[in-house]
């Protein structure tokens, strides 16, 4: 039953509903216009432009090192800029720093939570960041003294309201970018722990992020369970481009080395390439025989090869320009969960649910 005050409220409500209808119509019109504009530019396919490019020969890539030491699934890894050290994190809460040349463990930290889903090396090589089910991103300075307890110097930087899915230092040790199951990304000042910028727009968990190569300016791309990949302006917090062509969660995003495109890997078993200046998807890397999700992707230095780790334990190597698969690599005994090419492009590292990391070259 409504009270006698209602006449004004009823009018307000009618007005609000009218505004809502008007806005919905406008958003539908804008969406169609966007699709039309994008379609106009689709004058040719990437592989057609690449027809005259020489095909790639046979690739012989093998496991050159196996890093054993984690007691459970490896979830994430990152290279140090020195091209030999690696940080990895695991479901058992352990974060380990390795010398990939010798396979020796240099540092180990036990986090207070399990499922450490994200880890990153600081550009200076002097610290690592990690987090997961604790909803935080913490930074550990690495000590030269191997006996020192790293956990004592731990600094909590980021606080989300759900799990931390990915983290990355920006081009210095001073700022960290995070993504979370709470649907947001955020930029933090490491020293003070202050939130510098937050990024809202995903409709579900954000699973991955990648920063644009420094020459191309202050943007980053994120991918989520809403099947969208969003490109963000780091200074304003604005989403500047959005791509929704995947049919399932996007687990990994990585910029093409020139910064003009990015690749994504999804639970829909495909990898895709999105051209930022054409504002659309320009290639799909898939095969009928590949039915398991892609967990992680990375480019070789020239951008010609795309390495992708899959939930069927394999790594597929794709010719980015021609859209064909050039190699399939076996070795892991469970899902490949993380994959990164080394900073000088001489090798790539994979982490797996089989508890190991492998270096391939």
């Amino acid at each position: 039953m409504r009270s006698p005050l209602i006449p004004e409220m009823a009018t307000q409500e009618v007005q609000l509903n009218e505004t809502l209808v008007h806005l919905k119509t406008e958003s539908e019109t804008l969406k169609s216009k966007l699709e039309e504009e994008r379609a106009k530019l689709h004058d040719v396919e990437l592989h057609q432009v690449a027809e005259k490019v020489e095909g790639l020969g046979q690739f012989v890539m093998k496991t050159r090192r196996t890093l054993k030491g984690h007691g459970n699934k490896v979830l994430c890894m990152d290279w140090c800029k020195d091209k030999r050290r690696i940080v990895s994190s695991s479901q058992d809460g352990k974060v380990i720093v390795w010398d990939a040349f010798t396979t020796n463990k240099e540092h180990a930290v036990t986090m207070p939570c399990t499922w450490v889903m994200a880890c990153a090396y600081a550009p200076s090589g002097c610290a690592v960041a990690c987090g997961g089910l604790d909803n935080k991103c913490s930074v550990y300075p690495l000590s030269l003294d191997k006996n020192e307890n790293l956990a004592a110097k731990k600094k909590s930087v980021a606080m989300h309201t759900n799990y931390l899915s990915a983290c990355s230092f920006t081009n210095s040790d001073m700022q960290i970018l995070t993504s979370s199951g709470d649907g947001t990304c955020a930029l933090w000042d490491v020293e003070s722990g202050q939130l510098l910028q937050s990024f809202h727009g995903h409709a579900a968990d954000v699973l991955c992020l990648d920063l644009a190569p420094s020459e191309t300016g202050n943007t980053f791309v994120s991918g989520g369970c809403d099947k969208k990949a969003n490109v963000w302006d780091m200074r304003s917090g604005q989403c500047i481009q959005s791509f929704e062509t995947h049919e399932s969660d996007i687990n990994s995003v990585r910029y093409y080395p020139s910064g003009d495109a990015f690749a994504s890997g999804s639970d829909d078993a495909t990898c895709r390439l999105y051209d930022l200046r054409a504002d659309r998807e320009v290639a799909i890397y898939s095969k009928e025989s590949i039915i398991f999700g892609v967990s992680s992707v990375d480019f070789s230095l020239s951008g010609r090869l795309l390495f992708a780790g899959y939930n069927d334990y394999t790594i597929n190597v794709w010719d980015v320009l021609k859209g064909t698969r050039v190699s399939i690599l076996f070795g892991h005994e469970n899902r490949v969960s993380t994959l990164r090419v080394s900073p000088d492009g001489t090798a790539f590292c994979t982490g797996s649910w089989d508890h190991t990391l492998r270096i391939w070259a």
Partner: protein
Amino acid sequence: MSGKTCSSSSSSSSVIHAQKLVDQLRVEASMERIKISLTAADLVRYCQDHRRSDPLLTGIAASSNPFKDKKTCVLL
């Protein structure tokens, strides 16, 4: 504006949400886009320009790749 009914305040939050969506779409629609024939040519050119300095592509010799084991070893 006190005393709003529940349905009215959820209408106004729907309106705020819808307005944000429209604003976001306007930003995206205003972008200047370039034809794929041009942008794809740039992607191809980048690959070609950098192919010689891509060790995983060209396959570098064991002697210069720290991860590939060298055949000989020196006994001290």
